[in-house]
């Protein structure tokens, strides 16, 4: 008998999703209770994941198709906390657009479930199942504000392109299966050897599919449009949660089944990383919409995360995970600011709307200032340490070119972050924005800004947690 306790969180979430759906069908006007119940579910799941799996070293289930180890539990916790905070700060926004329905929390829960399956997968089929579950939920979420043209367009675009990339992924998987005769990661790892050249095709297809999911250049085209069109809270969800899950899968693929093929994939990852860092920095300069700008900046940040992965070392993986964790906090903070730009039931998302913010809203703009400098990677804020760890790992492998290009692109990126700060602090002020924000929004902004600002006092804590992750 398998030890089902280990996947208790997944089972619990699936049952809750079914229950919430039934509740929605039979009870009128149940959106508020569904929201609260889903928050409760995520909370419980987080606690269970925290308790059950942090003690486990490495356990496998169901013929080794599911793996629970320190990486999966950490990433699940980040995913869950991210999902929780997104859900909790969404309500005002959704109410404004009159889309405060039961589907929203249910969809978020199911995509989280899909991501948890992805994170734990140790088998091509389980992985694909999880991926599709989360993607389907995300398509619907992207078009959630269905009365708006842009939202529908975003959802459709996302659906078509994402389906294409899933197809590529699946094709890659079938090639890999053909060569190794198994769908299990560990067996694939033992079966594959670098003699087979067609095998490289399989790897490339899988990497392309995954690069699409984390929007690395040159598979990023969907990101700016989808990020701009989707409802802001969904954009927030897109920029943090699926990225964490996709990054985990990325790590799992590179370092379990393809571990012996480093020569084949290392150059690809280095290319993806450099392209994303440089393109993300350059393309963001001309943007006028904050959500689009965030899309390009997130492309850049993914580049830095990939730089860590390209090193093929444990330090590199750990640095990537540190990077993505800090990135999640920074993005959460940035979007909390964005959600506060509301005036009489209208949300503002152009950079010019920030003009002179510091006069009327000194605290909000101070938070934003810190977040932007942190995103630019200026010490002593958290964003600097994220980059620092990554480049430390990169330089350990003597990959000087990658490090120098990466750091130079931070200078380019600094330009557009500075531009926002300039608009907030140096330009003429506009009308005041509303100040009656929900408590949760204020809470998430305060906590994340404090984390960013004071990270430098105890930088070892995060390193300690992450250093338990040893994949290779």
């Amino acid at each position: 008998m398998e030890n089902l306790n280990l996947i208790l969180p997944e089972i619990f979430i699936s049952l809750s999703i079914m229950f919430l759906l039934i509740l929605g069908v039979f009870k009128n006007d149940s959106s508020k209770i569904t929201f609260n119940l889903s928050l409760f579910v995520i909370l419980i799941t987080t606690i269970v994941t925290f308790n059950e799996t942090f003690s486990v070293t490495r356990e496998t289930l169901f013929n080794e198709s599911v793996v629970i180890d320190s990486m999966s539990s950490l990433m699940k916790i980040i995913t869950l906390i991210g999902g929780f905070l997104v859900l909790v700060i969404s309500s005002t926004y959704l109410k404004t657009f009159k889309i405060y329905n039961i589907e929203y929390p249910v969809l978020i829960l199911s995509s989280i479930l899909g991501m948890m399956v992805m994170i734990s997968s140790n088998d091509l089929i389980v992985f694909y199942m999880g991926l599709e579950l989360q993607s389907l939920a995300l398509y619907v979420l992207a078009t959630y504000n269905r009365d708006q043209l842009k939202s529908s367009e975003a959802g459709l675009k996302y659906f078509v392109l994402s389906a294409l990339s899933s197809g590529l992924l699946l094709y890659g998987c079938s090639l890999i299966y053909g060569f190794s005769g198994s769908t299990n990661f560990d067996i694939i790892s033992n079966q594959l050897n670098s003699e087979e050249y067609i095998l490289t095709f399989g790897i490339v297809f899988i990497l392309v599919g995954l690069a699409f999911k984390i929007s690395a250049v040159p598979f990023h085209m969907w990101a700016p449009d989808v990020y701009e069109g989707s409802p802001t809270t969904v954009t927030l969800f897109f920029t943090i949660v699926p990225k964490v899950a996709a990054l985990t899968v990325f790590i799992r693929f590179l370092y379990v089944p393809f571990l012996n093929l480093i020569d084949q994939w290392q150059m690809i990852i280095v290319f993806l990383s450099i392209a994303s860092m440089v393109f993300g920095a350059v393309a963001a300069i001309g943007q006028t919409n904050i959500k689009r700008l965030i899309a390009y900046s997130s492309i850049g940040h993914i580049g830095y995360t990939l730089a860590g992965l390209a090193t093929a070392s444990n330090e590199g993986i750990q640095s990537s995970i540190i990077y993505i964790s800090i990135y999640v906090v920074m993005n959460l903070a940035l979007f909390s600011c964005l959600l506060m730009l509301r005036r009489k039931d209208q949300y503002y998302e152009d950079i010019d709307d920030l003009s002179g913010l510091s006069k009327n809203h000194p605290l909000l703009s101070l938070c934003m200032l810190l977040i932007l400098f942190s995103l630019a990677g200026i010490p002593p804020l958290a964003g600097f340490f994220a980059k620092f760890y990554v480049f430390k790992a990169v330089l350990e492998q003597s990959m000087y070119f990658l490090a120098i290009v990466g750091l130079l692109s931070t200078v380019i990126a600094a330009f557009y972050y500075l531009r926002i700060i300039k608009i907030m602090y140096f330009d003429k002020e506009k009308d005041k924005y509303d100040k009656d924000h929900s408590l949760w929004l204020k809470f998430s902004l305060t906590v994340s800004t404090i984390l960013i600002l004071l990270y430098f006092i105890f930088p070892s804590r995060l390193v300690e947690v992450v250093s338990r992750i040893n994949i290779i």
Partner: protein
Amino acid sequence: MNFPILSSLILLPTVGALFLFFIKEKEGNNTTIKYVALFTTVVNFLISIYLWIAFDQSTSNFQFIEDRTWIEGFINYKVGLDGISILFIILTTFITPLCIISVNNSVKNRLRDFLIAILIMESFMIGVFSALDLVVFYLFFEAGLIPMFLIIGIWGGARRVYSAFKFFLYTLLGSVLMLVAIISIYWITGTTDVVQLYEIGIDVKYQNLLWLAFFSSFAVKTPMWPVHTWLPDAHVEAPTAGSVLLAAILLKMAGYGFIRFSLGLFPVASEVFTPLIYTLSIIAIIFTSLIALMQEDMKKLIAYSSVAHMGFVTLGIFTLQQQGIEGSIIQMISHGLVSAALFLTVGVVYDRMHSRLISTYGGLVSVIPKYSILFMLFALASLGLPGTSGFIGEFLILMGAFKDNFLVAVIASIGVILGAAYMLWLYKRVVFGKLLNEDLKKILDLNRSEYFILSCLAAPILFFGFYPDPLINTIEVSVTDLINMHNTNIASK
């Protein structure tokens, strides 16, 4: 463990800034805010004076060391002082309160935020001069960009946005390569602790590249020709207090970095690249002095003169002679005082006339004599008249240069003459001549606070000009040991 006096020196301004953050700013009544800021910085100055008194001048070992684990197994938070760094810290803590007194007239809006930025800036600057770990140094070095960017951008003049961006991006671009070098040093030697690195040394084959990476950062910050162009812009647009901080202290970070890191860590590479530094310094001295001659804007003229003076500093450091390095340090301290004073004197007339153009003025001596006398003192100190601190620095540097390379020294001496030319000409055009501008007749002489600030600056300039022993005694042992260490490193190669 003893009381962490150095950390409290670093932290105190930030604590003061935190206090200010919670004081509400009222229209027209900002005395509380100013007094809190002033009190913090004065206390900090007293602590640093105490450090100077308690400092043991007979050893070159680092003192007041604090060493704590920061990122486990990787970086320690390590700070400490030797004879070289303590002078820069005192310069910092001395200049900052004067800046705060001077904001009376120049900063009209958002005074509280301005003072917060200045206080935080002070923390970072003290941190730079006391850091004994490369990563900690980098952290403070870079962090200073944030408040300075805001100071220039929010409270600056007409082209403030352009200048703020230029300042930020230039310096950031310079320093990212230094970050690569710092991490590489960690992987080559296994530590970023400066004291340990002094002992174990860095393999010769890496030194040249690492030296260049550090150089890229310090050259921008110094600033050396041809990457000096951010400085005139930043200086001109920054508010007076910002220009003072920039000229008096920020530029010294690079000179200090050259002595502490480039010389100390990469002795062989420093020898290799001495001709490069000589060339750039000479170009800086002659070329920017000539540019300074042609300026019509007073602040710009002083900014270019800063570049020329820093050219002397880099020249002196890389003579690798006792006199040269000591001269450079004294020149940096003296330039810190003199350029601060000059910017403040320009600030005084700017506040009254709202023009920085030389042509606006002329004949000031007949209306504001007190001002004219002090201005003359600072102008003479800037050109290095004997009896002012400027002379000691320049003289020692040239002495060191003559020992090392005759030709370089001769050319540099021409720079001294040019320095005298642009400074005296500036003074002549502003203070002497006929009083043509009618508006000038109503100009007021120095008020009490301005008089106080300028006298505070004039006193040490004169004192150290006649009696430089306190400065020289403090740095002597440290410099001697630095040169000995350098020579043994070269000899063993």
